[in-house]
């Protein structure tokens, strides 16, 4: 349903001002031109304001640590010779960082795939199967949309402790799947419910079983919603720190937690933190730029999370 939401590129149709403009005096047209200029300047300043923090991180990550300790990143504009990939090179030799990057991938990919598959199975059942209390069950799941993850931290930590999942990648994955499911079921059920009934019936007449119908008809048709959900969940899990902070240990921690443990010495280790933070941002930013449209619709549908 929400898959064709507004991409960022939406610009409203240009206001049909022609007729009004003809009636305007020269003075008010001048005033309009001036305010148009003001708007441009204002937006440019704001845009710069929004970019500067990130640029600061990028340039800090590209300067040798002794320069970072001595002066601000803007010094590279006068001394471009400072720029170097030294810190990145050092960082990639740091075993903690590289293994935590691998952990991030090892957590994010399964957590995304599982949420899509499990959510789609349930979404399909809620949309097209008949069983008692179906709508009530669905509403109960929707009710869980806004439950804060904080509520589950202590109980699940205890639960994982009992069954030996505490500190493992699997535990982190499961937690993300659990808290990703309400949104997944909500989004996919609503999307699947729009599939034309005839398509499903035709497939049924061809003798397709329930599982086959799901895999061959429903999933492909659900592509746009699945893409939105997948991208949203991917970014959510990739960017998570809190859940991993609690459920992972030093061997299974993702990059966010590895960098967080460095925060204590903030100031002396910008050469680790800045490039580390930037590396952790590269994949989400690439996903964001590549799948803007799906991301926006995911964000719009998942506003509550």
């Amino acid at each position, binding site marked *: 349903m929400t898959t064709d939401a507004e991409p960022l590129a939406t610009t409203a149709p240009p206001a049909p001002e022609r007729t009004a403009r003809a009636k305007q005096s020269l003075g008010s047209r001048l005033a309009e031109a001036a305010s148009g200029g003001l*708007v441009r300047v204002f937006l440019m300043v704001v845009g710069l304001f*929004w970019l500067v923090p990130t640029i600061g991180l990028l340039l800090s990550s590209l300067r040798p640590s002794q320069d970072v300790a001595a002066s601000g990143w803007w010094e590279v504009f006068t001394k471009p010779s400072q720029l170097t990939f030294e810190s990145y090179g050092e960082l990639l030799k740091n075993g903690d960082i590289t293994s935590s990057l691998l952990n991030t991938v090892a957590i994010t990919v399964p957590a995304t795939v599982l949420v899509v598959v499990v959510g789609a199975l349930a979404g399909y059942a809620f949309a097209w199967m008949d069983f008692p209390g179906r*709508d009530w069950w669905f509403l109960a799941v929707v*009710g869980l949309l806004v439950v804060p993850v904080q509520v589950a931290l202590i109980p699940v930590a205890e639960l994982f402790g009992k069954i030996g999942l505490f500190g493992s990648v699997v535990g982190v994955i499961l937690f993300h799947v659990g808290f990703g499911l309400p949104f997944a079921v909500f989004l996919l059920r609503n999307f699947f419910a729009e599939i034309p009934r005839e398509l499903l019936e035709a497939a049924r007449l061809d003798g397709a079983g329930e599982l086959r119908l799901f895999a061959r008809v429903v999933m492909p048709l659900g592509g746009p919603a699945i893409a939105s959900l997948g991208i949203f969940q991917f970014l959510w899990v990739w960017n998570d720190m809190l859940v991993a902070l609690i459920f992972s240990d030093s061997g299974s921690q993702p990059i966010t937690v590895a960098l967080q443990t460095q925060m204590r010495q903030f100031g002396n280790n910008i050469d680790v933190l*800045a490039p580390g933070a930037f590396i952790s941002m590269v994949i989400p930013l690439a996903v964001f730029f590549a799948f803007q449209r799906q991301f926006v619709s995911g964000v*719009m549908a998942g*506003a509550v999370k």
Partner: protein
Amino acid sequence: MASATAAGTGPSPEGPPVPVAPKSRRSVTGTRRTVAALFLLPALVLLGALVVYPIGYSLIRSFYDQSGDAFAGFDNYEALFTDDGIRTALKNNVVWVVFAPTVATALGLIFAVLTERVRWGTAFKLVVFMPMAISMLAAGIIFRLVYDQDPDKGVANAVWVGVHDTFAESSAFPKAHPGRQSPLEPAGGGAFVTKQPVALGETVVLPLVGVAPDRMPDGAKQAAPAEPEDGRITGTTWQDFTRGKGSGTPGGVDSTELGYPGMRIEAVKDGEVVASATAAGDGTFTLPAEADGALLRLPADNFKEPYNGLDWLGPSLVTPAVIGSYVWMWAGFAMVLIAAGLAGVPRELLEAARVDGASEWQVFRRVTVPLLAPVLAVVVVTLMINVLKVFDLVFIIAPGSSQDDANVLALELYRKGFASDQPGIASAIAVFLLLLVIPVMWFNVRRLRREVRR
């Protein structure tokens, strides 16, 4: 509510936000219930174990004491309002909930409306929306750098000090003060004044010490003794200190010593400034005849500490500073949702108002904003829920020294539950957070029930 309504702000706002399934959605496949159960099982098991069971567990745990053995009644909830740490957290959460969503939404609204008027609106939106894609940890590191106290390193203070110094002159001689056997004495408020009045034709020496060599102004030249002049008062003010040799001749202008260019000198009679002068590069100055019999004063302006900007991450500013970083992350979210809503506003309405002679501001205030009210409400409520759970930004940006002052409930829950081993109180905080979102949960379900049933 948020999810369902937000979804309805797509390009076809007239379409139903939640699609209604065909009238009879009796299973097309004539499924047996066991099959349905199998499809649902994985989701229900995971939701039950990881979301529903924890809610019940937290609820019960919140009524037990620290060890979990003894029933504690409402003690843990009482702690919510008596424990200092939690009270600070509550207070900060109120500040967060009031300011962060409104500021982010207001900015989002302004950006959404204004970007419609420029050709590069899409690029602008990309820039503002981009922070949503990165982790709060990365945003936290970004803003730790931005808020660095040292104006030579943190961009926030660099800009702030730059603006400040444009309007308020900075002083050149922060730590300067009279040495031993000086003719000068402190006059209160950081100024220095001569012990004896001056007379016409005299040459005055105003020696000071204490300016670090690398902090001396660029225009400082070798100090020169002043030439006496009839009908005037002349003098020298300089750094009476020779490196390696101590103070040279105390009170005497030595060839190795530097003048204080730009030092202001005032002649004061009976508390009134009767004349003033500014020292040249070699430290010499000349006062007119009016200064006869006056005391010479070096006003405090000369010795002000250089302005070092704001202590962004100190106790009093840390919460607004972290809220600033949150707004940086989430204003784009508000902007995109509002822009989508704006695209659905009928252009004719705006045009009609313009033709009727309404100014752009009136069109915005009287037509656009009321039409967008539902979207604005969704955005604000969504951000409020989000803000209740804010953790990472505070945890990362607030340095250890001011983390107590920046505390919020989600952070306090983490500290109580995992750092200080008080799961009872942590559970009470969790239940409290849950209670705060229950109205939204109820609204979501009620709204959807109507649509599912239709």
